[in-house]
């Protein structure tokens, strides 16, 4: 019996707008209207400005640890824009702020979160997303469950979940992919492969050539895209989202991008990362090429750029004001959301701000005793 091939597969790579601003007219045809591209570029500029300010807030002691999104905006915006606002559901990690804002998250919420304030997680009514997710990879299973519920209720809605290259090493990633595909739920797995998981490079993370190919094992369509190319990201995301909406099941998108900043403000990437590598990727910045695209087509110029930079500055100032202007949460906040109804013990802890029985019962407390002692 001759040996036969049991299975073959290949992974496609999609790029439409390259780092030099070259645009593939055929692949990019009718993808986005000129005014949409202008709008998305403006959003990118504003998000970059916010990211920069967030970094400075941390440096000046006005905010805690912050993970910069810099350099990954096309991945967030292209995918976020492909999802239907108010209908589709975003399940993020923490490096796709721009997508969350597109779907209605007030910008100062993200600052509040990193300022150590849970109110930044209180997603406003009607905004279809979960808050940032700190533990790596756990959110993908929740997205799968959310998508499953959409399917059970026959709602034409899709969940899209974001995660990094590092997250693909967690068991949760594989479990989520397997469940999603086995039950054919409308979930899009969007990997921002920014080449690093803190100090661990992509090659240490997995021996497979691409992350996209991991989908093959789960019987799920996948694609690798230039994650710094807004058009490629948008096209691949829209296809995956609409396939899911139409009952075609989940997909995996690997967006090849780069973390232009440190992992977080607590990190110093110079310890482990080549300056040359960084420089190379700075040239692939999604914002630079998108601006070039617009300028080449007469849709943008220096004047518009200056005006929008000013506008972004003003927006960001308001956002910072909103985040910093809010009063410190009351100590009751520690207790009030632990359960729908506080158990008696917790109620007592809240009332007395003490944890000991001696302190919780004023009659029994040492007040009289203290008087005796005196």
């Amino acid at each position: 019996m001759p040996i036969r091939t049991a299975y073959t597969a290949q992974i496609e790579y999609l790029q439409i707008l390259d780092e030099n601003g070259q645009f593939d007219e055929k692949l990019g045809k009718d993808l986005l209207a000129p005014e949409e591209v202008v709008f998305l570029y403006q959003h990118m500029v504003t998000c970059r400005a916010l990211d920069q300010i967030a970094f400075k807030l941390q440096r000046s002691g006005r905010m805690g640890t912050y993970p910069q999104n810099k350099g990954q905006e096309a991945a967030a915006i292209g995918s976020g824009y492909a999802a239907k606002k108010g209908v589709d559901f975003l399940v993020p990690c923490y490096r796709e702020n721009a997508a969350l804002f597109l779907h209605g998250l007030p910008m100062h919420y993200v600052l509040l979160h990193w300022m150590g304030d849970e109110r930044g997680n209180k997603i406003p009514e009607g905004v279809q997303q979960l808050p940032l997710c700190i533990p790596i990879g756990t959110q993908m299973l929740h997205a799968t469950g959310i998508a499953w519920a959409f399917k059970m209720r026959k709602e034409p809605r899709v969940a899209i979940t974001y995660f990094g290259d590092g997250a693909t090493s967690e068991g949760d990633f594989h479990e989520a992919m397997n469940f999603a595909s086995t039950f054919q739920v409308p979930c899009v797995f969007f990997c921002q492969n920014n080449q690093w998981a803190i100090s661990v490079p992509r090659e240490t993370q997995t021996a497979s050539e691409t992350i996209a190919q991991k989908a093959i094992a789960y019987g799920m369509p996948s694609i690798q895209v230039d994650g710094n190319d807004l058009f490629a990201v948008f096209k691949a995301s829209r296809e995956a989202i609409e396939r899911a909406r139409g009952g075609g099941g989940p997909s995996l998108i690997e967006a090849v991008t780069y973390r232009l900043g440190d992992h977080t403000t607590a990190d110093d990437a110079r310890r482990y990362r080549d300056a040359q590598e960084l420089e190379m990727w700075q040239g692939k910045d999604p914002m630079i090429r998108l601006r070039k695209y617009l300028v080449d087509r007469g849709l943008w110029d220096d004047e518009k750029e200056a005006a929008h930079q000013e506008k972004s500055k003003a927006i960001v100032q308001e956002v910072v004001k909103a985040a910093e202007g809010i009063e410190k949460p009351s100590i009751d906040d520690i207790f009030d959301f632990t359960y729908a109804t506080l158990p008696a013990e917790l109620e007592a802890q809240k009332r007395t701000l003490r944890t000991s029985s001696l302190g919780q019962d004023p009659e029994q407390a040492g007040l009289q005793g203290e008087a005796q002692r005196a």
Partner: protein
Amino acid sequence: MANLTLVQAITLALQQEMEKDERVVLLGEDVGLNGGVFRVTEGLQKRFGPDRVIDTPLSESGIMGTAIGLAMAGMRSIPEIQFEGFLGPAYDQLVNHAARYRSRTRGAVTVPMTVRVPVGGGIHAPELHSDSPEAIYAHSPGIKVVMPCTPRDAKGLLISAIRDPDPVIFFEPKRVYRSFREEVPEDEYTIPIGQAKVVNEGTDLTVVTWGATVFQCLEAMDNLPEDVSIELVDLRTIYPLDVDTVVQSVQKTGRCVVVHEAPKTAGMGAEISALIQEHCFLHLKAPVQRVTGFDTMMPYYKLELDYLPDAKKIGESVMQTLAY
């Protein structure tokens, strides 16, 4: 002797054990080239090479599970879990496997592994970077739980942990990582697991604590009236617990306040109170008082200092227990 921080003392212990024992290997996220996010393994990969100081894929279950295999196969594995909040994915491997192998094989298979984990709050960290889960592991038979708070204790206890024939979870209070220095002997030495330390001798009341709150207790004691004499006990090891030291102290003082960062209910304070009740019933002049975290999530950092036991809360509780 050198004047070291907690971080440096731990690095030194790791280095010395690695020099002495070829079986010792470190594995975890960012422990190699980057020297760990807290720099605890700084310089060790350079010294011992990437085969002994290993950057792993991002998977706590993977790190813990393979560290178990390494240990079973004759290595002395030292996995690092980057923050206590990420023990979750490794829990099954640690509690259901590492802890149980000796027992379920009637001693044929053992897991001499030391799990290093930064622990506790007070450093303005993000969510799940500030918890105190020691009671969970103390409640898991088969695992030893160690939490030193001074550089000297950390070095001696870590060396003991590495040489211990059973799995040890070694919690490192991150609030103390760089906030306190002391002279640490250059030479290797061990401090036995399971021995508490009387930090301060006293006669009126015993304060039992461990980890970063030792320093909050010391601060509270500084602010107490001069005629109040406090005996401060740092458990250092959470399990096996040094019952003798606690009992002797409370039999002498008749009063006890237990302080910990973790939530109150089913925290170690409950266990210690029960032990005192069993061993010191007739010596007690007041109920044992607990000053602990609330039975809530560890809040994000804007409120973390309102959650954690501090010198003021501890001082008040001490005075009330004294006055009882």
